[in-house]
């Protein structure tokens, strides 16, 4: 008998099973690729699920135009190296209207450039299933979500009336215009993600590692000055500090943490003693109570 499967082996097998289930039962799946660490793990698993073939679906990045520059470089490098089909969608109306996180606030910016943009992209290509890297341990409303999560024709989520999800038997049936969001990492914790990245040596955006970066303190968070669109407010001073990021998003909305962890081992070590959750570094989750559930009902991932 081979050695018993480890916890990560089981999580990996579950995710691969979910990938294959979607490929076998949907006519037009897509993988939402956000370039963050969870997306890196998701991509790694998608490659494993269909080896020696390539994943039979494209990867979609919804670009708000405010992502860290290093994320965009990393994204394009991955697409070249792994050879997957990369689709990039930008809400051009939002760009035309000059929507940005400074003048319009994080809520409006996220709604227009992310949620609406995502709905546009899904409608444009007619995808009937979309993989996302969300985990149940991230946030309370995500803890409630099914692995195969049904969306109405308008991309809405009805959390009070979800389909039962029994065993590993997934109901993959949708009518015209309806779709399913699929979360292969549902049962992973943040710790599992890092330990798996360490075990499998998965490439991630360098922003996760500590380095000296130009930052300002704003609203209780440490914001990196990633380009000259960052407007300084009176009294704000740009400083070089040794920081890294626990999660990645739009740079004006994502807080850095002081850290010296420059290797994967050091990051995992830091994780084991963390006293705050990863979402603390995200401005958009703190805007209002129940804000994640509200965004999700509107079509956010």
């Amino acid at each position: 008998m081979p050695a018993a499967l480890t916890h990560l082996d089981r999580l990996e097998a579950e995710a691969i099973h979910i990938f294959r289930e979607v490929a076998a039962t949907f006519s037009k799946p897509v993988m939402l690729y956000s370039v963050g660490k969870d997306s890196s793990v998701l991509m790694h698993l998608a490659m494993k699920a269909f080896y020696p073939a390539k994943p039979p679906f494209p990867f979609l990045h919804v670009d708000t135009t405010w992502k860290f520059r290093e994320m965009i470089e990393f994204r394009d490098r991955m697409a070249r190296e792994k050879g997957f089909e990369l689709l990039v969608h930008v809400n051009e109306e939002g760009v035309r209207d000059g929507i940005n996180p400074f003048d319009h606030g994080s809520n409006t910016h996220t709604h227009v450039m992310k949620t609406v943009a995502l709905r546009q992209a899904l409608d444009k290509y007619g995808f009937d299933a979309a993989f996302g890297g969300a985990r149940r341990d991230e946030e309370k409303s995500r803890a409630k979500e099914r692995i195969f999560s049904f969306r109405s024709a308008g991309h809405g989520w009805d959390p009070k009336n979800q389909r039962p999800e029994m065993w590993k038997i997934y109901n993959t049936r949708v009518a015209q215009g309806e779709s399913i969001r699929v979360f292969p990492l549902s049962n992973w914790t943040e710790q599992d993600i890092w330990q798996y990245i360490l075990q499998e040596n998965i490439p991630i955006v360098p922003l996760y590692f500590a380095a000296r970066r130009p930052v300002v303190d704003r609203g209780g968070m440490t914001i990196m000055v990633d380009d000259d669109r960052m407007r300084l407010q009176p009294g704000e001073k740009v400083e070089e500090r040794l920081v890294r990021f626990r999660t990645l998003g739009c740079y004006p909305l994502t807080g850095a943490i002081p850290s010296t962890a420059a290797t994967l081992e050091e990051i995992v070590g830091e994780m084991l003693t963390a006293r705050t959750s990863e979402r603390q570094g995200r401005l958009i989750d703190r805007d209002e109570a129940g804000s994640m559930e509200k965004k999700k009902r509107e079509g956010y991932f």
Partner: protein
Amino acid sequence: MLTANTALLREDDDALVDIRDYVAGQENKGLLRFLTCGSVDDGKSTLIGRLLFDTKLIFEDQLAALENDSRKHGTAGDEIDFALLVDGLEAEREQGITIDVAYRFFSTPRRKFIVADTPGHEQYTRNMATGASTADVAIVLVDARQGILPQTRRHSMIASLLGIRHIVLAVNKIDLVSFDEAVFERIAAEYRAFAEELGFTTIQPIPMSARYGDNVIRSSGKTPWYDGPSLLEHLETVDIEAEAEGKPFRFPVQYVSRPNLDFRGFSGTVAAGSIGVGERVTVAKSGKQTRIRRIVTQDGDLDVASEGQAVTLLLEDEVELSRGNMLVTPEARPHVADQFSATLVWFDEKPLLPGRSYILRTETDEVSATVSQLKHRRNINNFAEEAATSLDLNEVGLCNFSTQAPIAFDAFSDNRTTGAFILIDRLTNATVGAGMIQRPLRRAANIHWQALDVTRQSRAELKHQKPAVLWFTGLSGSGKSTIASLLEKKLHAAGRHTYVLDGDNVRHGLNRDLGFTDEDRVENIRRVAETAKLMADAGLIVLVSFISPFRAERRMARELMSEGEFVEVFVDTPFEECARRDPKGLYAKALNGEIQNFTGVDSPYETPERADIHIETTARAPEELVDEIEAWLKERGHC
């Protein structure tokens, strides 16, 4: 993230442990999945919140948010309301109840845990079942002041049906009965008595106060009379490993991988047992044998694949094999049958109707299925078997199933993965039920389809026609029979071979045992559809004149026939006109309340959405309408 684990790390940062060793140690810990269930307000969410809090798994920012929420929505006075840690939906927080299952994660130095916090309200039972379907242990909470309630019984029964073998009976709020041993013993004894026939391997009663933490992670000084383990001690040690061992190899094929002409791989997750390269395997449905050539993963080929691994298998021979089939060990093959009995839990507001066609899904297979017989319903209070004609929301019953094609399966008691299925409504795509297979029915094993030499095609050719089933649907008195009868005359005169199946006439013979309830209407249609199918097979043009009010049954009839053979004719006459014509005087009686379940009056008629032929009788004479139908048939080569 685990402060509970920081003790394992040396304080001195320079001596940062070998993280890789530490991680390897973490990963070799076992995983236990459990759920909390029981009646409303028995403290399920509070218990989980307490477990997370006491095992130090709540981050500082989460705790700050919780304190904030407790002031706003809390039900624990000035104290922290732990339930708000898990009740994550707005509606849940506002109403102070749990609607859907929440999954939480924690670990101790001994095990990793996934907890499903499930709702107590009866209306959300399907969400409790969702959480229970993947759990190894159920914590059944009971409020010490209330004792055992109907929901305690219902959840225990569902846990048992879904294959959970280990129960923790948490007698909660023991502080509110002054830590009274007698109360605890009485509830424990009552539970053991009724759970006797549910077949649990272990039942561990624990007196508990989730709110104050007594006996949650460590033993409480307030219950000196209790010498059993605390909840966490029990969860860390309960033995669940034995269940998976020694089962025959099962590999449901999920996906066929064909990246190039030289590679034909069968991807899937090993459901039970193990298989090695070179070993013999059997294709479940055909009985064909072959051997394993390679076990492929991206990390390199494996020698052996075992339960839980997601792999791609290459076979020695070109055998017919696709999604929905299984590779199995030749020594112990699963059942392959189109008729079997199964316990069914019903999840939908609309009741289960025997005879109605549903989609049945196993892990990878999908077929049309009907309940051919509802043997009995289980009473949730005393578990007695009761006669029933349908199952309502949250009810449980034993049913005989008939599927359109054979499926491969094991008894659920032998294998939770290959013995389970869900039912899906054809129109709404809702998941309406979950089934646990008991056994194949003997008649399926012994009656094989006879392949006959004279084919349907040869029979039709002899008659110089293309068979069809014209399905006339519409309200009573809409003119279905008149038109069908006129059309038959015309076709007959032209030398066509026809037959009219008339709703009223069939009820005098074949269907004389059926009434007009929804269940009987469904069965009525099923029999007529099957009869029409045989007649079409014999080469006839069949004219079925039936109210057939439900879309689901008309769709079922359509799916029974060959492609292009079924022609739905909607005889569209407004209700007022039918009631005015009233050729049999039935509308007068129904409107007077003398007849029950009369279509259009107190029983619904679901209008066809895409009839092949739509005729409006108020605009034109029957003869004209018949000409139109005949022209339609001619165009498509039926006559």
